[in-house]
């Protein structure tokens, strides 16, 4: 019997189908967690904090502290510039209610910072005002950084803004890296939780598919239906269709799981009564394989399902429907 007989292929199709459904659930959960935790906005704030924290604005106590004769705490004093930045009108207008912005352009960052630093000075040029503002700052890491940056400018305000934008861009590059890493970590965490809660053990699933021809056949039939559905896609919305600022990205993972898919998933995964039925020495390996598989994402498994379906059903039966372009009016398959 060859390796690629139909039973083995059907088991593989069943596995891919399960991975696809679990990936869809995982992605939905990840999007939900990201929205709930304001992950993108918080990552941006963290990036700005890393740039501006640890810098006082004046050596004097702030007015309210002056009135109460209480000097600012070290922490308050060292975050004066950061707090001033966060409450600046240019930044506040980007808030959506209480929700902070998810994107800040280098230009806005530079404009806000130079405005704060130049505000109290009316010198002979904008550059001179900015330089005076920076020189007047108490010693701190932002003052040191800005003076170093301004040495690279040509005594022109445009150059100064440009190098500040570059400084911000470098920081945002790190922020993008953090965001991607956090999303990847969350994907694995959610995949692990999902796998354990649902006891999605790849080896158990394989065993069930192998030993139960009726279940296997039902799964393959449903996998066929799934393969005919639209590929999981990314959907993007902007606040203004002429302005790409602040895109909102949602993963439109095809359709939701159908009742039949949920039912089949329930037969293939889940906890059974009696630990012996759930546990073997291979169980951790089975979980690990499932977590690894889910973290690859739904689009990957959708593509894989289609490819293996083509192998399995090469020489299509006459009653099989040919794939046609979507006619929803919103999708074109080229």
């Amino acid at each position, binding site marked *: 019997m060859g*390796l690629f007989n139909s039973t*083995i292929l059907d*088991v*593989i199709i069943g*596995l*891919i189908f399960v991975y696809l459904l679990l990936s869809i659930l995982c992605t939905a959960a990840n999007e939900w967690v990201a929205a709930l935790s304001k992950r993108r906005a918080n990552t941006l704030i963290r990036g700005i904090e890393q740039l501006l924290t640890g810098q006082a604005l004046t050596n004097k106590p702030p007015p309210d502290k002056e009135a109460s004769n209480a000097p600012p705490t070290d922490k308050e004093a060292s975050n004066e510039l950061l707090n001033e930045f966060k409450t600046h009108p240019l930044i506040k207008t980007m808030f959506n209610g209480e929700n902070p912005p998810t*994107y800040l352009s280098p230009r806005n960052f530079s404009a806000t910072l130079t405005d704060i630093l130049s505000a109290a000075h009316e010198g002979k040029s904008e550059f001179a005002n900015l330089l005076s503002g920076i020189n007047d700052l108490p010693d701190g890491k932002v003052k040191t950084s800005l003076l170093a940056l301004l040495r690279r400018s040509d005594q022109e305000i445009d150059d100064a803004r*440009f*190098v500040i934008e*570059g400084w911000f*861009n*470098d920081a*945002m*590059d790190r*922020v*993008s*890296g953090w965001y*991607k890493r956090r999303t990847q970590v969350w994907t694995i965490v959610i995949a692990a939780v999902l796998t354990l809660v649902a006891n999605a053990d*790849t*080896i158990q699933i*394989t*065993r069930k598919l*192998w*030993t139960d021809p009726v279940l296997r056949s039902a799964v393959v039939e449903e996998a066929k239906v799934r393969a005919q559905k639209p*590929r999981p*896609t*990314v*959907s*993007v*919305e*902007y*606040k*203004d*269709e*002429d*302005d*790409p*600022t*602040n*895109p909102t*990205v949602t993963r439109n993972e095809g359709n939701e799981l159908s009742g039949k898919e949920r039912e089949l998933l329930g037969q293939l995964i889940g906890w059974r009564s009696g630990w012996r039925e759930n546990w073997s020495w291979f169980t951790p390996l089975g979980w690990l*394989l499932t977590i*690894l*598989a889910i973290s*690859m*994402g739904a*689009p*990957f498994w959708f*593509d*894989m399902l289609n490819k293996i379906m083509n192998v399995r059903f090469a020489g299509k039966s006459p009653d099989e429907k040919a794939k046609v372009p979507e006619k929803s009016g*919103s*999708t*074109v*398959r*080229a």
Partner: protein
Amino acid sequence: MNSTKRVQVLFLITALLTSSSVCRAEITVALTKGFVRKYKDKATISTTFDIDKHHDHPNPIGSGSDDGDIHIAGRDTVVRLPMVAEIINGAKEKSALDFLLQSTAGDAIPLTGVWRLWFEHPGNTDQIQGEDVSIPKNTNPDHIFEFHPVVKFGSFDVFDSFAPIEDEEAEFRGYSAEKAFDAYEKRPGLITRSNTAIMTQSNKAGFNYAEFQMRLAGKPKDVGDGFIVFANIYNANAKTNDDPVVDESRRMVFVKGTNLLTQ
């Protein structure tokens, strides 16, 4: 399940899982509807291009990637996607080339180029217009958008670069029309829309250059910075009675000011 079968199935599961490292999923590029509307019938886009990395000499002329281009990786505020600009026949455009070689990372250069969305270097991450664009670490970062060919770099027109890629020693040849257009026509692609964006999903593409003969199938339309015309595609050496390599005519774009247009 006997032990042999178990080993076979485990082997297949492992193969399935490890294959992810070599299989590339499809990538989505998203653009605002306003951007699509503004540029869909334009030959070029003008922007201020913030240079991050550039080659220190044009590619040699030969075969494969030796296509005579000079690559510039950077970012901008009009397109706002990961991008690369390429001046074709870079060695022939001395003034623009000297200007480029003198520029350094961080320089903002006015640039006009033919826009191109092609999944030649898509990477593994969706490219959403307006999302933060990472600073390129080399001259060929993951990107789908290109200014290729560049039409104007700084104050230098590079119209003369729109010419066959050749020097005294070699001539660059593209893929045959039959091969390249067969691949173009078979490319998988999914275009979807939301209220404000157009998303295009596809996977890695090839066949950067093709040699073909075109026969106009309609009247050229003046789009301001160029002409757009539908044409039938034939092999480069096709004779009058030969069949086109593609059944239907395809849209071709010419840039105003280039020699090719006047020819």
